[in-house]
């Protein structure tokens, strides 16, 4: 199946200066597969109790969003990446980014995620969770803070599901720009691993972009998370597909990816296919959870 890609830009949601360089690089890699540029987006959040919320978006962007402008202005991006910058106004970061996705029909959305001390109910933090659940485009969540210093190999763990294609795109994009190899990896638990790996290989070949060297590995283990974590140590970047689509958000954001992120110090990118968002059942679920 060939993935219909948008010619729109790759959007990057920026919340902190520390994340810009890393996220812009990943976005640049992904954008190089298509025609689009990279657009850095910050959201000027005006909450319900802010007296400033009654101003028009235009006024807020012009007069009351200094910190957002400052963030964008100071954002240094890789020299070879073409970058646009944009400030949006919304009641929350997630709402702002979702509106940006609806308006621009981007090729993908890239956001950062930072491990937090505080324990919350959310799997990856409320903003990322909302995007994973609702952003109708391919979404990449990159753990920021740990960036690979030079990439020689990209690990692509696979176990079927709808997100393989999306993960494969990022793997090819990153490998191509770094002259790196992609390792397709699967853990044998129920006899499907060989099929999963073949599917992953096919997904990589299907990506509309340069050829990259691909290798495959299957390992037998009862502990999927542990096996992926062990394997990750031998690579620079791990691109994980979100787990299978489930009726609950928790399932979608996935417990295996969440545990892998916790236990490895590699650069980890979670990939989620935009096609899983939408459909009447999904909308109903969304309505009930509101």
């Amino acid at each position: 199946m060939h993935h219909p890609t948008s010619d729109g830009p790759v959007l990057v949601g920026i919340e902190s200066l520390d994340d810009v360089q890393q996220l812009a690089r990943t976005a640049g890699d992904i954008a190089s597969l298509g025609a689009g540029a990279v657009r850095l987006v910050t959201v000027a959040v005006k909450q319900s109790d802010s007296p400033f919320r009654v101003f028009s978006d235009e006024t807020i962007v012009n007069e009351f969003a200094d910190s957002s402008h400052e963030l964008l202005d100071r954002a240094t991006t890789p020299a070879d990446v073409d970058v646009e910058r944009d400030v949006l106004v919304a009641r929350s970061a997630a709402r702002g980014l979702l509106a940006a996705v609806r308006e621009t029909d981007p090729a993908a959305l890239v956001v950062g995620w930072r491990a937090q001390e505080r324990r919350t109910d959310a799997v990856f933090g409320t903003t990322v969770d909302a995007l994973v659940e609702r952003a109708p485009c391919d979404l990449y969540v990159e753990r920021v803070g740990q960036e690979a210093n030079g990439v020689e190999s990209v690990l692509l763990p696979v176990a079927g599901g709808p997100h393989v294609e999306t993960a494969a795109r990022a793997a090819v994009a990153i490998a191509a720009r770094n002259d790196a190899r992609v390792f397709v990896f699967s853990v044998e638990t129920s006899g499907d691993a060989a099929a999963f790996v073949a599917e992953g290989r096919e997904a990589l070949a299907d990506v509309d972009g340069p050829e990259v060297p691909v290798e495959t590995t299957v390992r037998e283990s009862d502990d999927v998370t542990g096996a992926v974590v062990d394997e990750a140590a031998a690579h620079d970047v791990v691109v994980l597909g979100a787990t299978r689509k489930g009726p609950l958000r928790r399932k979608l954001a996935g417990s295996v990816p969440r545990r892998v992120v916790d236990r490895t110090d590699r650069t980890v990118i979670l990939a989620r296919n935009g096609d899983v968002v939408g459909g009447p059942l999904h909308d109903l679920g969304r309505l009930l959870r509101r």
Partner: protein
Amino acid sequence: MTGLVFWVLVGLATVTSFATAWALGANSNSPPFAPAIGANAVSTMRAAFLIGILAALGALTQGGSISETVGSGLIDGVAFTSLAATTGLLTATAFMAFGVYTGYPVPAAFATTGAMVGVGLSLGGAPAFETYRRIAMFWALVPPVSGGLAYLTAKLLRRDDIPETVAIPLLASVVGGIVANIQLSIIPSPTGAAQESVAGFLSGSVPSLTVAGVDVVTVVVTLLFAALSFQFIRRRTQASIDKGIKTFLVVLGSVVAFSSGGSQVGLATGPLENLYRAELGLPAIGLLTLGATGILLGAWMGAPRLLQATSREYAQLGIRRSIAALVPGFVIAQLAITLGIPISFNNIIISGVIGGGLAGGSAGVSRRKIAMTLGFWFFTLGVSIVVGFGLYRLFATVLGA
């Protein structure tokens, strides 16, 4: 009703009231000091500390009047039982939580007032139309008056022919004059009222002297306060305009934070008035202490985060417009306390920010957003009445009360 159920409800009502006070302390107290932080007159942590103390003091000394209105002024003929108080508080809290979760503007004053009216009617009480009329009039007047005062203040500060060494002290004198007249429950009243002002206390303590119906001593004390305030800020601005303005911002922030505490605590404690005072026989100060503690802790724990987020916005608003928004905030909050009318402090500040903007030409507001904000105010008020009414009926049926 059995004793156990009664005490469980008392406990639940107390916890909800405390939580409401906590939320009010954390959320509605950031505007007073945000401009001062934005102007680097005070640090965020020190501001949060001051806000907690001042708002709690305001709640203790000025909270009684609005608390009484919420607790007994909205419904005639019945007193709020423990179940009714709990239901009213839970309804109001649910609305506020809805606002926080969805990001829609849901003013606490509207949610609490609506919920208490709904529950009271459900209890079989009669609507207190006279109170509603007064509250409605006050609410309707808040935007034009707050906006108008902010407009005038901003105009005054923008005039080139009035130097800041005159304009700022002039505003300080107005604030000082009002401070002399604010109602405090700690000041013993010579006439036996529950609350009294400094000016009222002094005028009641000396032989009465009225000219044309105006109490001379009150006027003299007020003018004295105004003159002292003028002189104090005048000296500071003359030494350094920048320092003078910063001092005024901190002083203004302090009195606004104090007023904010006094005007908001009643929303948390009002529903418990009858339960605590009539049924449990506790003094009024006991209930206000509960609310003040909640506000104090809420401000200390919640305000720093919010202050950090909002101080930048006020810094961009500029000192003149910030002052222009805070002056009406103080005046109207004190007026509401004097009249015992529950108000949403944020609504006053919104109108002030817009009014101050109009003084500089265009306010740059979005009609759609204002319409949505107004819509949610009405929605909150209307639906909280219905929900309060229905919820009490449901609880009463389930508990067989």
